[in-house]
């Protein structure tokens, strides 16, 4: 007996998710018991729609609304449940997606420790909110770990859970490989006071129109490279800028101050002292007092040793805690990640399935473009240079002025909140106003064809040009 909306009448086997995926029917009903996870991988070419029929379910900490359809494409993710649920999964191409149910027991699920962590943080937040001392700050949590250890998922979960309880945490992304509410190659921060759009990575940013799920307002700085060690000097300088702005926000916004920060970080390799240096820099700059290390005992041990006895600028102990990575972390290979970046750029200009955006195309002469190039500058002296902190006085050229050229074709450049005649440092330190994509370069006529989010003159804004995100050949194809 199957009645629409009454999942409990379904007699379907509860474990047959992946088997059912291959069956002829495009609609599958999946029952999850508490702590189970429905893990799915949808290619970019097809989509998967999930509806919560009954019970409660969440994706990365954000609860699904009952009966509402959520459509995913180009996603490797999971839906988990604490109380049990029934999901209805509809695919436009049943053969294309891959899914299975992970049947955890309570003592196996890494989510349990994540939830405990959240509750602990929530206790600290509530203490901060109640403290007589108006300067009391909520916890600043740094999430670290090697590649594919689920750092970003944990950061997202902690954020979503905090938001659900009425907090407004500041989310900071210090991983240039992927962007948070911004494009790859940037470091960014945003306050999350409202739900995230679970069908996207972190939700949307403002557009000229309204949004059904509240958008978040990011503050972004342009790094333009993939990994922090490609130009540690620039990276640290930007971290300091980001930290200064974040700290200002915290000090002026009590809701955010009590909620604290959740800081995501780039993949760390414990064998590279440079990586650990960067983490130490982040801890210092953001006064992080809790470091959660996922999936690597070595990183945990290294950091615990490094921070032992250290105190934050607020005089707190720095706690380092090692947790298991979620066994469900999907392997996302280079090709998949490249598509993810491409999708992020596409969405920035053109919107997503829910909302179409109309970017503007402009034809600009070389003479009215001021571009600066961010180059790699590996830290050759890091071995003997103990100084973790960026010294503004020691700046040499981290960015250099360049003429537009063929090389810019298919590149995504950042438009900076600075003036074209500002010194390089000011431009480099400015925050990002937006991005443009170079669709065509005519060196003979000395003209550029530029895709910009807003159909208006760029004005006297300098452009920063890095190598990350890489040129996207098929963006308009």
């Amino acid at each position, binding site marked *: 007996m199957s009645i*629409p*909306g009454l*999942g*409990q009448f379904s007699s379907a086997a509860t474990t047959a998710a992946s088997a059912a995926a291959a069956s002829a029917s495009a609609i599958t009903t999946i029952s999850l*018991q*508490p702590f189970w996870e429905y893990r799915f991988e949808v290619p970019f070419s097809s989509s998967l729609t999930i509806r919560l*029929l*009954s*019970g*409660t379910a969440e994706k990365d900490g*954000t*609860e699904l*609304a*009952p*009966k*509402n*359809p959520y459509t995913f494409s180009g996603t490797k993710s999971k839906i988990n449940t*604490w*109380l049990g*649920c029934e999901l209805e999964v509809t695919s436009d191409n049943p053969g294309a997606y891959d899914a299975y149910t992970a049947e955890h027991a*309570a003592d196996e699920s890494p989510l349990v*420790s994540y*939830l*405990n*962590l959240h*509750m*602990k943080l*929530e*206790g600290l937040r509530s203490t901060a909110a109640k403290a007589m001392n108006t300067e009391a700050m909520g916890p600043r949590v740094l999430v670290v770990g090697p590649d594919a250890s689920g750092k970003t998922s944990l950061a997202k979960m902690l954020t979503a859970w905090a938001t659900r309880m009425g907090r407004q945490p500041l989310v900071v992304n210090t991983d240039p490989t992927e962007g948070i509410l911004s494009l790859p190659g940037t470091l960014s921060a945003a*306050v999350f006071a409202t*739900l995230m759009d679970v069908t996207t990575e972190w939700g949307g*940013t403002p*557009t*000229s*129109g*309204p*949004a*059904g799920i*509240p958008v978040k*307002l*990011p503050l*972004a700085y342009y790094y333009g490279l993939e990994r922090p060690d490609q130009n540690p000097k620039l990276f640290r300088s930007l971290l300091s800028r980001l930290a200064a702005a974040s700290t*200002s926000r915290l000090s002026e916004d*009590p*809701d955010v101050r009590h909620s604290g920060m959740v800081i995501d970080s780039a993949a760390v390799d414990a064998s590279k002292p440079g990586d650990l240096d960067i983490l130490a820099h982040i801890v210092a700059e953001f006064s992080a007092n809790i470091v959660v290390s996922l999936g690597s005992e070595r990183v945990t041990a290294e950091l615990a040793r490094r921070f032992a006895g250290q105190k934050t600028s607020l005089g707190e102990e720095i706690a380092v*805690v*090692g947790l298991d990575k979620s066994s469900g972390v999907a392997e996302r290979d280079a090709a998949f990640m490249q598509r993810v970046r491409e999708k992020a750029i596409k969405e920035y200009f053109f*919107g997503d399935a829910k909302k*179409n*955006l109309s*970017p*503007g195309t402009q034809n600009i002469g070389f003479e009215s473009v001021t571009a600066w190039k961010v180059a790699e500058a590996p830290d050759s002296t890091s071995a003997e240079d103990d100084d973790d902190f960026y010294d503004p006085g020691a700046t040499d050229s981290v960015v250099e002025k360049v003429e537009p050229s063929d090389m810019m074709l298919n590149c995504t450049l950042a*438009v900076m*909140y600075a003036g074209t005649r*500002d010194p390089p440092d000011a431009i480099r330190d*400015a925050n990002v*106003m*937006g991005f443009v994509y170079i669709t065509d370069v005519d060196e003979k006529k000395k003209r550029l064809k530029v895709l910009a*989010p*807003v159909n208006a003159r760029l004005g006297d804004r300098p452009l920063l040009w890095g190598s990350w995100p890489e040129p996207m050949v098929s963006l308009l194809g």
Partner: protein
Amino acid sequence: MASQDEGFLEDFRDALEGLQLNSRFEIQNLTMIARESTEEALVISQALQDHIKRAAPHKKLPALYVLDSIVKNVGTPYTIFFGKRLYNTFMEAYASVDMATRRKMDEMLKTWKEPIPGSIDTRPVFAPDVTRPIENALMQARASGNQQLRRMMGPGRQMPQGVPYRDSPTPPAARPPSQSNGGYIGGPPPIPGVNNAPYGQHGQPPPAQYPYHQPPSSQSTPQPPANIPAFQPPYHGSYGMAAQPTISTDALKEDIQGLITAFRAEFARNPQDPSIQSKLKALLDLQGILQAQNLPQDQLVLIKNQIAGLAVTIRAPPAQTPTPVPISQPVAVAPPPAAAPKVSIDSILGSGALAALLARGSGTPQASTPQPPPATVAIRSPPPQRAEPQQSAAPADPMALLGMLRKAGMLTAATPSSGSTPVPSLTPTVPLPFPPPGIPTGPPSMDNFTGDIAFNALSLKQFRPHLVPLMFEALGPQCTHCGRRFKTDDEGKKKKMAHMDWHFKVNQRIAEAEKSGQHRSWFVDETDWINTRETIDEDRIAAPGDASGTQGSSSKTPNLHYIPVPSDPVLKNSVCPICQENFKQIYLDDAGDWVWEDAINVDGRIYHASCHQEVTGNVAGVGTSNPYTRGTPEPVLGKRKAEDELAGLRGKMKLETA
């Protein structure tokens, strides 16, 4: 896709809201929507039942007719969804409408017990176990009145009345009464707990594991065996006194004592939950009343029903307890007599009930019947009228207490919220070893729950089942649009209202925005970002004036005046006619749009609000004390900075002078 769903539901709700009269066309239309959206049956049935609950008394009957039309013309799955909460929906509506409407509801109820006329399906519209509790409750209420009233009610109920809107070929009520009730005369005796049927779906664990569970006597149905004759047609009149001593006060007291014990235990577990505290208080008060007063049977029945519902709530494991949905029920607000402990039937069925019944000597088509005067009065201002015969509303009043119980969310199990569709068989696997060791039970605080968690892997890995509910039901039911949770206390309700308002407005704007092109906005600049304050579910366009009253955390920018950035390209490039400078464009999250801050539109021309004030002198002081003149051109960078400061300062000044 989501927006489409919301759209059709919105349509359905709108159409419901507009349904004032028994309009055949509108009811058919709503039925059509329901027929075409059976995959959304749950949402629709919830929307309709919520509407019936919320609607003004005079709009309840048309809405009930919609329900009737849907179950008769569409059938499953609606019958199942409506059936779950039918008892509550029906009884709450019944309690708040006038006598004339009640009789129509009686007629309708009668048709529900029978197959749809002309249909080959011989099953009744609603299963007997859905309709029987309603009938029982109605009879109980009637039985508590005097004999004469009951005799009067009998003939009134069997009045054949056409229901004009229906599609079904045969008017459902045009049947002899003997047939309408006959099926139940020889029917099975009432199953214990039959009145709990709407609660039963929550899959309580076996009662035995709860020490506070009451002995069988208290467990029994509100209809004790003595009541079996009540299944005969009510106008039979032969069971008169036999039905009276049905509920023993002692058993009830025992029940309440058991619940008090249970809630005390619950309170010790969840000291942070104010609802438990209020429930406990209400129970203690109720106990006091029972001891002090000798209540009439009908009151006892009502209390008993409440207690039964409550017992289900407390018995269900917390992980599964549906979130409380307070019910507003006019009859509960009506202050019945405190002076006269004997609460009359009037307080339950409304004053003038008797008169209305007497006036209804013969059946007349309902739509055209003029309302008997007393009933009409009852419609216009129900609570005061009902309270008329009584002078004072003492706190010791049992009905008021029931109201309190409802308010405190004790009726939870009876009215599952939309988000709490039960998942039986799943939840029992969550072990609930309450309370876990090391958790102090002290004043409500997050620390009490997290104090035992340490920042080490071992401590963090330990599953603490009591934390899970804090992420779910403790936060209230979910918004059906986006899944956000809202508590059911006053503040939560306020937030929920603002939130639904926000959804509504944004959906409207999305529809508008789809007509014109949209584009990604530039990110804001550092200073603006730092000064941004998140606003949740606020719509500043709606209330631009209240910003001066709100504190820093909720006001996005210090500026009070802004207008949406004009779409007209000419206007878009316009400058302030006074200072000849451009307008500063910022993104206002709560407005969901880009706006020009510090701008006002005066007779089609846009000015800086501050410039305009300076010139017109609307606000004393600003014109003279503002040291900033806006006429000096500055280099690009400097200007940006200067303007930021300027805007901030201007805003501040305005806040001071406003």
